């Protein structure tokens, strides 16, 4: 017990003696854990806004889209309503496709005819204005955002003027631009039919049935919303029905589970970005912490000697160093968890197409445990080597504050003799500590990997942004870019911290040789330039390696997303 107290006391005193270094270490680990927390918090949050929307709109368990009319339509509707387990329905509602013009913006939409009275199943929840009336349409919220319209504005559908009566959300289809994400029976042209390659960027508009029929320039399609006695069996029903389809005229059934999965698409992308980002940041944090801890260790050589001289065992010396950094890692994990948990709602917006405001992120106890474990692992991985080295240091040389013997690279010494003085000094400085140089190179490689992956994403997003109808802004891309900005900002901050820490450690280590170089006639500028060169030299191969790695990371992250 006494030994534990002693370790705690020594660790606490040491932390108080060097508060700036402790803060740096805390910040570095916190940045990584906060990002990891965000990634984990987003994992389960996607379903919550959908559930709220489904409850608020009496959302259907199954949505059937039917491409027939007349007697065939009636027969198919009767068959669907007669299916065992079906307990209620809304529709069938006529559906036409329409070219929407709102100011200078043009898009293609599915226009669904509704009754002015509320429907028993899937009554879209108004977020603005009123429900449909003759000449007045209601626009799905994400689509309205992309069009830049609100209640009271005027638009045209297939050239006919309408007023925007309201804005609403629904659980019966994914929001714009992923209307067809869960399966789609509508083509962009007027004629409905089975669509083998569903178009992206379709919007949804509700209007009166009479207006919908008036818009149609060809055969109408129909939507029938069903409720089941056992909503959990919706997926099985849809699959069974889909397997039994002999030809394309039969209705297409979409379960609420498929719709929820399509809704989650946006959060899944964001989560993928955050998870990839947090691992990149984690690696960078390990490199930074390793350099920081090694630098702190170099400053404590004499203290280690004193501890040993008064009877401290090598184990005690290692334990003190480990205790310091593990305590900092625990604090950083706590702060990172808090920061990530608080920031998650800002990034887990339910999307314009869903109801409600974002709730508390679904951070579970195992998630929190994982974050803490990662923080401790980062600190442990970075501390272990310096701690063992400190424990093994001879007491006499530690008391003399002797610097750790630098590595000799004969070929570097020989080759650098031909270089200008700053390069000569810098090359030799970098070669003295190959492990630090490797860590520096790895840090830069990780940073460049992240930056290249972000740039690749932006290039890809630039192509995708034109893929929606009428060149409307894609809300999914906007959200992903917001998350990417956060990851990039943290990456940049961590890379900055890493550069500061590495430079500090190099300067610390080079104190003696720099002073000697000055005594032998090197100018202050030459010494400063030499220290800079010692930073830049390992950075070059790291940066070069980061380019293909970044492209690879983007490819892997993209392929994971399907």
């Amino acid at each position: 017990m006494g030994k534990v107290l002693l370790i705690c006391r020594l660790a606490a005193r040491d932390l108080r003696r060097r508060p700036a270094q402790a803060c740096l270490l805390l910040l570095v680990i916190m940045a990584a854990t906060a990002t990891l927390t965000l990634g984990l918090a987003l994992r389960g949050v996607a379903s919550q806004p959908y559930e709220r929307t489904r409850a608020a709109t009496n959302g259907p368990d199954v949505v059937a889209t039917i491409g027939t009319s007349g007697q065939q339509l009636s027969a198919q509707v009767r068959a669907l309503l007669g299916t065992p387990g079906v307990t209620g329905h809304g529709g069938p509602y006529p559906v036409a496709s329409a070219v929407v013009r709102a100011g200078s913006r043009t898009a293609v939409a599915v226009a669904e005819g509704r009754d002015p009275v509320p429907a028993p199943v899937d009554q879209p929840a108004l977020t603005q204005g009123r429900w449909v009336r003759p000449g007045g349409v209601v626009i799905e919220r994400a689509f309205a955002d992309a069009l830049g319209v609100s209640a009271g504005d005027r638009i045209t559908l297939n050239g006919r003027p309408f007023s925007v009566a309201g804005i609403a959300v629904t659980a019966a289809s994914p929001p714009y631009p992923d209307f067809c994400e869960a399966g789609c029976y509508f083509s962009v042209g007027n004629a409905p039919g089975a669509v083998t390659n569903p178009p992206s960027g379709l919007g949804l508009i509700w209007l009166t049935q009479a207006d919908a029929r008036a818009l149609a320039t060809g055969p109408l399609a129909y939507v029938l919303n069903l409720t089941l006695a056992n909503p959990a069996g919706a997926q099985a029903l849809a699959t069974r029905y889909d397997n039994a389809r002999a030809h394309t005229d039969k209705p297409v059934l979409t379960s609420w589970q498929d719709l929820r999965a399509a809704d989650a698409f946006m959060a899944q992308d964001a989560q993928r970005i955050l998870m990839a980002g947090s691992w990149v940041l984690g690696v960078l944090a390990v490199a930074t912490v390793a350099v920081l801890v090694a630098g702190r260790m170099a400053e404590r050589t004499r203290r280690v000697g004193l501890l040993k001289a008064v009877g401290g065992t090598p184990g005690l010396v290692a334990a003190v160093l480990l205790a310091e950094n593990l305590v900092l890692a625990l604090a950083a994990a706590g702060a990172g968890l808090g920061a990530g948990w608080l920031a998650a709602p800002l990034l887990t917006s339910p999307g314009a197409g869903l109801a409600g405001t974002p709730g508390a992120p679904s951070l579970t106890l195992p998630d929190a445990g994982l974050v803490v474990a990662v923080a401790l692992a980062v600190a442990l991985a970075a501390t272990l080597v310096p701690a063992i080295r400190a424990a093994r240091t001879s007491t006499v040389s530690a008391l003399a504050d002797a610097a750790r013997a630098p590595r000799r690279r004969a070929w570097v010494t020989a080759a650098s003799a031909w270089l200008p003085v700053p390069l000569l000094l810098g090359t030799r400085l970098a070669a003295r500590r190959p492990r630090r140089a490797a860590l520096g190179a790895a840090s830069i490689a990780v940073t460049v990997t992240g930056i290249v992956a972000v740039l690749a994403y932006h290039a890809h997003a630039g192509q995708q942004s034109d893929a929606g109808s009428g060149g409307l802004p894609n809300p999914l891309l906007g959200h992903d870019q917001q998350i990417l900005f956060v990851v990039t900002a943290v990456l940049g901050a961590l890379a900055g911290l890493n550069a500061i820490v590495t430079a500090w450690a190099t300067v610390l280590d080079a104190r003696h040789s720099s002073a000697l170089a000055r005594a032998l006639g090197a100018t202050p500028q030459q010494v400063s330039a030499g220290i800079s060169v010692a930073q830049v030299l390992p950075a070059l191969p790291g940066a070069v390696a980061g380019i293909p790695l970044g492209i690879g990371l983007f490819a892997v992250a993209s392929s994971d997303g399907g």
Partner: protein
Amino acid sequence: MSETADTVVLRTRELRKTYGSQAALVRAVDGIELDVASGETVAVMGPSGCGKSTLLHLLGGLDRPTGGEIWLAGRRVDRMSEKALARMRRDAVGFVFQAFHLMDELTAVENVELPALLDGRPPRAARRRAAGLLERVGLADRAGFLPAALSGGQRQRVAIARALANEPLVVLADEPTGNLDSAATVEVLRLFEDLHVAGQTLVIVTHDSRIAATADRMISMRDGAFIDETRLTGGTSGNLAGLAGLEG
């Protein structure tokens, strides 16, 4: 002092270096007046903390004085910019430290050639010069050894060779035998004797009277000021080790 040396290479006037202020003021160097002639060997001796090393650092441009003047080869040193001071240290001054201060990761010859490389000399010429200097200090066969593989005396000889790399006007030695045993001290003193004979100007700071006795002039220092000066007959041109009482 050698017969031909009568030009003053190094001169100080009212040289002062203080630390702290008011009650805590420490006068490390207090009004030193010094003239060192070309080819002269001057020994400054005194107890620990009397300001000898501080004086040497001021003379070599490693530290800046609080007041007074320092002149080296007719150029005023105390007003020089950092860059000019660096050039001066490179071209005109050679340092020999008590703790050797060799680069641990460089071999003997690489350590010796370093000042020449810093001076921008071609690597081959620097290496030739370094090899020649190592031969001069009797370490030609240790040229490829790292400092850790050399004895204390050998390390100090490497440091002396390094101090001579750029043919300095003056060599400043700070307790050059302070870390050496008697045998190694004799080796180093012989080297200084050779340098003296060759006309090299030397300022040696020491608290060992036997070392000081080998100089042309011995200056005693206490509390930052010179308190006594003795001109020695013969200087190091005689039997140095015998004079110093170190010959076995």
